[in-house]
Every structure is written in structure tokens, then in C-alpha cells.
């Protein structure tokens, strides 16, 4: 086999494929995969790198993920340091210049204002993110901002379908705003209530719904709960008319159950992302279920 022929053959078939096929999106988290589905429908193929039962801080740069990223035209991730332990390695190993460049890399955190930007960076304070708390998906207002920016990016990367993305954004945005109204009305009784969280994944939900976070099971972000720290939370949780002890679907239930037994406050498991609960099948259901579960704890 002549090498030149083989190589040009490969190039030709690559061009032929790219001309015919839909664009491929690599989404780091299920929420952004779901958002791409809302905005693009079947115009794109979406590979979601993680599931709601996985801790996205701690994913390994697995071969299967390198293979997925290798073929992607657009990468859609939270950013803000959330995937710092694996995404840079995937990008370096995948040899895909499209997603290593500015247009092919879309980071949701960069589209919104973040909360909890640390004034001082010190690892003694736990796993801090210099760009602020990256768990922005539980604030539907920020999700809408991300949607606007993402639709614009899809239009840029896949100009042939630009009208489609514009129409779908319009449709999504109308439905989303109506849903937000509904959620806010339903969640009104939650305003001002106290919650204890496992990890600081809920600050955006708290800000949106007016919940107060009075404590966290992790003494420092990313450091697993210790018994001494949990013991210190019992009195606080018990005496603050706490609504619930909240953990994400992927987190170990042990610590929150322990605190729940001693404080009498219900421990609840919220999806945190699409797929974290069997009913949370898309972004709309994610918020419906989250508010249902919080209201359930309030009764």
C-alpha cells in the first residue's frame, strides 16, 4: 500500500464524512448535554462525558472520553476549574484542534457572574475554584444566559443550521421563562428557610429561591465529611428550624443520614443535574423535581 494514497484516501473520506454528518458536541455534564438538545434537537449528536451519579470534580481522563473528544466539533463544559482534573488531559491527548480553539470550546461559567469568588486562594481552605463556585446550573436565570450564549456559539460553529438554532432558542426561552414563573410561585414557601448541604453545590439555587445555607457536611470544599465536624453540626441543624439536609445524587448518603437521625431534620437527595432522579429527564423536569422534593421536606 502506497502511503501517499492511503493518506489522501483517509483525508478524502474525512472530508466526505464531515460534509454529510451533523456536528458532534462533547458535553462534560448532563445539564449542558440537555441544553444542547433543547437548542439543537437532532441537528447535532451529543456525547455526554459524565452521569448524574458521578462526581464531576473527580473524573478520570478515560480512553473512551479521549475517543469522544477526538471527534467533537464543539465542547460544552462548565469550566471555572470544575473539570481541571481531567479535561485538560483529554484535550492534550485527543489531538483535536477544533475543540482546543476558542470557537470550539464553550465554557458555561464564563457566560455568567459567579458567586463565592475567593478573595484568597489557599489549598488549606479546601478545593477552591479561583473563578468562583462553578455549580451554576441550579439557577434557571443563569441557565437562560448560558442558553443565549450557547445558541450564538452553535450558530457560529454550524452556520448552515443558524436559523434553526435561532428558532429553537426563541422557543426554549419562551417555555423557560414561563416555567421560571411557575417555579418561583411554587417555591415561594421556601423563601427564607434554612438548609444544610453536603457540598457547596447549591449556592445558585439558594440565591434564586432565597434559601439560607447554614452549614455544610464537608468542613472544607472537596474534603470528605469527618465525624468531628458532623457532630458539631447536630445542635445547629436541630435548633435552626432547618428545612432539610441536602445532598446531590452522586454523594454518599451516610453523612447526611447520620445528621438526619440526630437532628430530626429530613435528609433529601436532589438530582443536581439531568438524570440525577428518574423523573429529572430534562432541564424542565430537573427544576420541577428539585422544587417538589424541597416542598416535600417542608410539609
Amino acid at each position: 500500500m502506497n502511503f501517499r494514497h492511503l493518506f489522501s484516501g483517509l483525508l478524502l473520506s474525512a472530508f466526505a464524512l464531515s460534509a454529510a454528518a451533523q456536528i458532534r458536541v462533547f458535553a462534560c455534564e448532563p445539564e449542558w448535554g440537555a441544553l444542547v438538545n433543547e437548542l439543537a434537537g437532532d441537528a447535532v449528536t451529543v456525547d455526554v462525558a459524565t452521569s448524574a451519579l458521578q462526581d464531576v470534580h473527580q473524573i478520570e481522563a478515560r480512553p473512551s472520553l479521549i475517543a469522544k473528544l477526538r471527534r467533537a466539533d464543539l465542547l460544552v463544559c462548565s469550566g471555572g476549574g470544575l473539570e481541571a482534573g481531567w479535561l485538560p488531559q483529554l484535550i492534550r491527548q485527543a489531538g483535536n484542534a477544533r475543540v482546543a480553539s476558542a470557537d470550539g470550546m464553550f465554557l458555561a461559567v464564563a457566560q455568567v457572574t459567579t458567586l463565592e469568588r475567593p478573595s484568597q486562594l489557599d489549598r488549606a481552605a479546601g478545593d477552591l475554584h479561583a473563578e468562583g463556585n462553578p455549580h451554576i446550573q441550579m439557577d434557571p436565570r443563569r441557565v437562560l444566559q448560558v442558553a443565549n450564549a450557547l445558541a450564538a456559539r452553535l450558530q457560529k460553529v454550524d452556520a448552515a443550521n443558524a436559523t434553526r438554532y435561532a428558532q429553537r432558542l426563541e422557543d426554549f426561552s419562551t417555555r423557560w421563562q414561563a416555567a421560571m414563573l411557575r417555579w418561583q410561585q411554587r417555591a415561594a414557601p421556601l423563601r427564607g428557610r434554612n438548609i444544610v448541604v453536603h457540598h457547596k453545590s447549591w449556592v445558585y439555587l439558594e440565591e434564586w429561591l432565597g434559601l439560607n445555607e447554614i452549614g455544610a457536611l464537608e468542613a472544607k470544599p472537596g474534603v470528605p465529611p469527618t465525624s468531628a465536624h458532623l457532630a458539631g453540626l447536630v445542635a445547629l441543624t436541630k435548633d435552626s428550624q432547618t428545612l432539610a439536609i441536602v445532598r446531590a445524587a452522586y454523594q454518599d448518603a451516610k453523612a447526611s443520614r447520620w445528621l438526619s437521625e440526630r437532628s430530626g431534620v429530613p435528609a433529601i437527595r436532589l438530582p443536581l443535574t439531568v438524570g440525577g432522579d428518574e423523573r429529572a429527564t430534562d432541564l424542565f423536569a430537573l427544576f420541577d423535581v428539585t422544587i417538589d422534593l424541597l416542598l416535600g421536606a417542608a410539609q
Partner: protein
Amino acid sequence: MRARLTVSLCAMLLASSVPAGTPSTAPIEALEARIRALEAQTREVLAALDQARAEIASLRAAPTQAVAAAALPESAAPSSPNAFNPAISIILNGSLAQHSLDPETYQIAGFPLAGEAGPGARGLSLGESELSFATNIDEKFYGQLTLAVESEDGEDGIGVEEAYIETTALPAGLSARAGRFFSNIGYLNTHHAHTDAFADRPLAYQALLGNQYADDGVQLRWVAPTDVYLELGGELMRGQSFPSGGAARSGSGVRTLSVHAGGDVGDESSWLAGVSVLDARTEDGEDGFSGDNRLYIADLTWKWAPNGNTRDGGLSLRSEYLHDTRDGRYLDSTQGIDVPWAGSRDGVYVEGVWRLNPQWDAGYRHDRLWPDASGPFASDTDPVRHNLMLTWRNSEFSLIRLQYSRDDAAPAQRDHALTLQYQAALGAHGAHKF
């Protein structure tokens, strides 16, 4: 919303009027009343929507202003020359080691020690600490420099472990690298020692690669556009360091080829397998060999973790088989020895690491070597070593490891080694390879 209401209204009208057939005023009036009610409802919903839109628009504007404000402090110091400094990562490593056998007299039957093979110092010592700088150079290149601090016989030295540039913008899944780097053969050879699960490298790596093969050279890798991960790589290396030496063929004494494939099985397991070959022309290698030598490596890694959360628990299994062939001469000028050296030797390790929880790892590794039955280093003893390891991790940045090894590397020479090791990662901590 508006479109949907209209559609459902039409549907209702059709559904109620078509089957009715005969004109009758009462149902129509009732329908009209319903339509009026629905229209009123629609107006209310739309008004509420407009209000919500206005609210959202103001919210949308507010964060943008906040972003602009938050960005100010950073842009206030645009001239800082440090702003583009590379990410700096430091690995600190030290150990306390107990050996029943004097490390000075240690040998491996059938395998002369070369490179960094052999046990470390007795007692307290600084292990291999590293200082690494890495960053994107521009839109087409990435660069990395790793310096290793080593202490030998009371003298400290700094060596260049890796110094290379790598492309980031080649098309079609290609990347190229040039400089000094760890060769892409096998599994452990491509990984920095601080990512290992054990305190030292397996006997097979010590004996046949001098712990790890790094050299000056160029590398080309290609990742196939397939569902299953498939990477092909080739390298042309100087051939200065063990298992080669002497920079033969005008400073291009080593060529390597490697294929790696990998993927997931369900949500909880992943695998990585590879076959590599290193082909060398060696002139006066560290083990006294001159001639043509070739090293084949097959590697297999299997990781299982509940829900794929490898940090919280799970099992990781790995094995590599090394096959070394030689065709040349053994020269020792000090003793005037010059004899033929042709034949083959093999080595293998199998390791299993069980992560009990985010803090604790326990593991076992079996090392075994098969020396040549003839030639200058003939031996009929197969070196065997058993290793048990327990690691405590405070965070992903620090760990303390205890390892016990029973090492029967040569006849009538058993070493019981107990190593207590600390390892810490300071500063920017790059993502690890699988």
C-alpha cells in the same frame, strides 16, 4: 405559548363542531363563551409573561454589569510580566526505608543494574522531587519542562527529566512532540513516578528499562476517529540512555512504535491495552552491551469503580509483559572481556490496587523476571518480588504510603524492605493520564 394556545383552540373547535353535523345555536354559544374565557386567560398569561420577561431582562443586564465590574481589577494590571507565567507544579517526595540487605550489594540475577534500577538508600532520604513548568506557548504549541532533584551519596543534583514542545493545532487527530520526554511505550513508562500506586517501579521496569526510558527525540501520535479509543505513535530517539546507549546511527539510535486502544464496559469499568516495540542500535550501553536490541511491551489496565467514581472506591488491575532480545557483544574493557551476547529475557508484573474509600488504598504487586539461560549474564534463578502497599491520602494533593517488599532478586539474597514514603503536590496540579 401563544402558538400552542391557538393550535389547541382550533383543535377544540374542530373536535366539537365536526361530529355535531347539524347546526344548533346552544353549543356554539357555549363555545363562544369558552373562547372568551380562554382569550381572557391568554391575555392574563401573556401579561404575566411580559412582566417576567422584563424582570429577566433586568436580571440579565445586572449580571453583565457585575461581570464588567468584577473584570476590572484584573484588567487594571495589564502590564504585569508575570501574568503569562507557566503553571508551576512541584512534587515533594521523601522516604524512610529499612532494608535487611545492604543496598550496595543488591543485584538482580541475569540483569546487570543500569539506569536508576535497584533499591534506594537506607534510612531517611529525599526521594525524587520534581519541579515542573507547563503552559501553552502560543496558539500552536504547548511546552513543558520538568526538573528532577536527586540526591546521591550526599550530593544533590538537578537533572532535566523532560523538556519538550508539543503541537496543539495539527489537523486530523495528529500531535507531534520534540525535545526530551518519556517514551510513549508501555503503560508505566509514559507516566511520571508520582502517579504510581507503589513506592518503586516493578522489577521488570528496573531491569529492562532502568526504571523508565526517557531520551531526546521526536514523536508523532495519531488518534483514530473511532468509537473505541485507538492511538498510534512513533518515535525517533537519540539512543543515549538505557536500554540503548552511545547515540548510534548518528544520534538516532532508537525507534519506537506503539498502539494503544481503550474504552468503557458499561458505566463502571474501563480498559486500556497496548503493544509497543523499541528498536535500538546500541554502542557501549550501560550494561556493557553493543549491538542490536529490541524490547517488546504488552500492557493491560482494567479499572472498575461503583458508578465510575474512581475516587470513592473500586479496583484497578494492571499488568505489563516485557520481552527483551539482544544480538551483539558484551564488552568490559577494564577486564578485557569481549564475548557474544545474543538471546532473550523477559519480565512481568501484575498489580491490583483496591481503593477502600477516598482516603485509603491497599495493593499487591507481583514481580517476576526470566533471565537468559546462556550468554554473559546466564542465570537459572528467576528473580521474584512480592510487594504489599497501604496508602493514606489526606487530599488529592498529599499522601503517605507504607510498602513492604520481599525481594528474591538473586540466589541466596533475600531483601525485606519496608518503605514509608510521603508525597505532596504543590501549586498547579496538572490532570493525570488514565
